[in-house]
């Protein structure tokens, strides 16, 4: 699915992005994400600090969904714009958020 389509699933778009999403990953431990996420992934997490963008850049994650109603740090948003990583947020918990997406990938 296209990154833009994530918004249509009811997630709030914070930073727009583009490209195709083929995989998903849900985890809050950065090393685990680093070691296991595939390229072109949508990543569900509750981590909101700027380092998640570095993780995304390195692993090839295209979009991040911040769950549980957390907010992104301003720095994270700036960095994501620069690196062209799409940021979304939702009040849903990680499990519910994943459920919404897993049928359409």
């Amino acid at each position, binding site marked *: 699915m296209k990154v833009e389509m994530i918004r249509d699933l009811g997630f709030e778009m914070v930073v727009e992005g583009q490209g195709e999403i083929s995989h998903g990953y849900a985890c809050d*431990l*950065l*090393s685990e994400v*680093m*070691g296991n996420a595939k390229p072109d992934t949508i990543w569900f997490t509750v981590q909101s600090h700027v380092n998640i963008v*570095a993780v995304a*850049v*390195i692993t090839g994650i295209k979009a991040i969904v911040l769950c549980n109603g957390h907010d992104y740090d301003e*720095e994270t948003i700036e960095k994501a714009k620069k690196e062209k990583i799409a940021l979304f947020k939702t009040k849903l918990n990680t499990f519910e958020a994943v459920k919404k997406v897993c049928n359409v990938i």
Partner: protein
Amino acid sequence: MEIELMENIDDLIKKIQPYFSELSVGDFMSSPVITVREDQTVFYAKELMRAWRISGLPVVDMDGKLKGIISIEDIIHALESGTLEALVSEKMTRNVISLFKYDKIMDAFKKFEMYGYGRFPVVDETDYRVIGIVTKQDLMLALLKKLSILYVHDARREEFVGVDIYRSIPKSVKIERTEFEFQIDYKDISLAGTGASELKKFLLSKNFSPKFVKRIAIATYEAETNVVIHSNSTGRIKAYVEPEFVEVRVNDNGKGIENIEMAMRDGYSTAPDYVREYGFGAGMGLSNMKRCADRMIILSSKGNGVFVEMHFWRHEDES
């Protein structure tokens, strides 16, 4: 993939001494060398040391021949006794122990051990002119440099870093040429990975495949993160690039790894709680590095920082 850990640099040096036997003082001495003439003042010597940030100077005569050595200690004595205007020849240490440029590295080692001085001037064997100087740092740098070349070129190293079969052995690694360099000069954990991201972009710009680059970037990210979380110090990322091969070195100036075997275990972490809340410190960093690198060497001991060297050969499916 093999991984070898050296707990202690001293042990390592002992093990690898035979491999350095052909290195001569002339190969690693610092040259030209800052000297002071015997008929100049102690004050002048002090200013030289301050300007060059060095703690000792060989003293020479008009012809550049070695006459003595003056150290920061001699300067302090002169300061205490108010004799900064005295001539260097009055305050210097005579009977200096020196080296010749054809002396072997082991001779230099022995002199450091035997005399406990921090530096030895190197003199020409015919006319005793000062042509260089060797400090402990020169010695260590020479060893590390040689060691890096050994990793890549010399199959004999397998005796001490483990046996492995290379996919390909790079033929002309120009180890002197740093292609990429990044200073890890921040303490903010949320910035970790900045260097790895830069390296990723750099490697992609060199037309390496995304799959190969990802492997290198992940390993570098973990090493960089470790510097930020654990070293309480600054560090540096360096990468050397060949068409089929990338070498990444990450080092820091921090407290070092006390128990390297423990640190290698999955899930073992000494990261503080605030770092864990951020999703770091899961104890998986080193194993991610091990998994991504074709070869990895970690040198560390308590108080001596950590030196990580990782080798990546482009695999067949990474074109």
